[in-house]
């Protein structure tokens, strides 16, 4: 019987847990675009997104033994990357009050999907320029599809706060896209 992608990944994870960095590299190649896309949108800055992506994979390597296979590796990796970005935001939030300089740095080309009413380029730029808290909740909820209860759990805020941040983000985005 031909191995399924899931079987293949199980094998890669097993080998990676045993210290096989080639297997881990293959897992990295399979998931890096998804992880980087998440990091990029959550932090709105390419160089920081690269650093956070690398950190996420290094942390994954360290924590591989705790991966039980209850979910797909990509799902586990995605959640781990969210935690890495949030951890970074918490620590950098203590050091700086400046929310974001991101709008001018990256806004993607959005070339893979056509979004006629709101241009993807404009949206990416506007999202990147949002304040950190609002951007985080907007990306997790409206782009990544997390529920408010999940976001509250991940970020350590109340569900009401998550909703308020989403409302703020959408308000700012409507304002930005209208102008």
């Amino acid at each position: 019987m031909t191995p399924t992608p899931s079987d293949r990944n199980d094998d890669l994870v097993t080998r990676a847990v045993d210290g096989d960095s080639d297997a881990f590299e293959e897992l990295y190649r399979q998931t890096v675009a998804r992880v980087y896309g998440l990091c990029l949108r959550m932090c709105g800055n390419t160089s920081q997104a690269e650093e956070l992506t690398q950190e996420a994979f290094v942390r994954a390597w360290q924590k591989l033994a705790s991966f039980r296979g209850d979910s797909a590796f990509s799902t586990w990796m995605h959640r781990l990357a969210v935690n890495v970005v949030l951890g970074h935001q918490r620590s950098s939030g203590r050091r700086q009050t400046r929310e974001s300089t991101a709008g001018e740095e990256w806004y993607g080309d959005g070339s893979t999907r056509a979004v006629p009413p709101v241009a993807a380029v404009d949206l990416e730029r506007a999202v990147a320029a949002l304040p950190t808290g609002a951007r985080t909740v907007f990306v997790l909820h409206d782009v990544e599809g997390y529920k408010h209860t999940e976001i509250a759990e991940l970020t350590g805020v109340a569900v009401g706060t998550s909703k308020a941040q989403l409302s703020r983000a959408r308000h700012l985005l409507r304002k930005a896209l209208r102008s």
Partner: protein
Amino acid sequence: MTRFDCDQLLSKLDELIDGTLDDADVGAAEDHLVTCKSCRVELDLGNELREAARALPRSVQPERDLWPGIAAEIEGRRVVHGSFRHAAAAPSRTWLKIAAAVAVLVASVTIAYMVGLEQAQPTIVESPTAESDYTVAAYGDVSSDLENVSNLLRAGLERRREELSPETWSVVMENLTVIDGAIARIEAAMATNPGDVRLNRQLATAYRRQIDLLQRATKLPAEA
């Protein structure tokens, strides 16, 4: 049922967009929207925004290959992590043994690979792809950066020479020489196999080990 005013509608706009508004409020909102153009515009834009966000591509390829940095990090941690943890508190002989072990490891891994490479040379015909070229270029950047760091640390260690005992100094230098030898062998092999990703990875790893050794050597308490 009461009809919403603009403030009430805007306060419920997100729930309306997400479809989580209760039926009574939906009716009140719809009644308001019939007569209020500005709120209709807000709702339309909100819906468009939600659709556009859902349509954004989830995957974005980074502009450069991030693996070399990850590989250097995890390779470094796999061998050295933990072994050196107590080095600063207990320098001298224990530390020196560990330093020697690292140097020997670097050398032996390198030599093993080099021997394998030489033996397998007739069958290794790896045509460089765009991706491998890119990977090699990225390793080249990493190795160059690591070499610079290594040189800076070496200069810093040199300034501490008088503070370290001759025995410690001698062992550190011997180990650095071993690693230097390994680096030289890898670079020589790279001259004939510039596209070999494994060699580039080995080089980055060797520099990483050297930096670990130098970092710990420069942090040793003064002995002399």
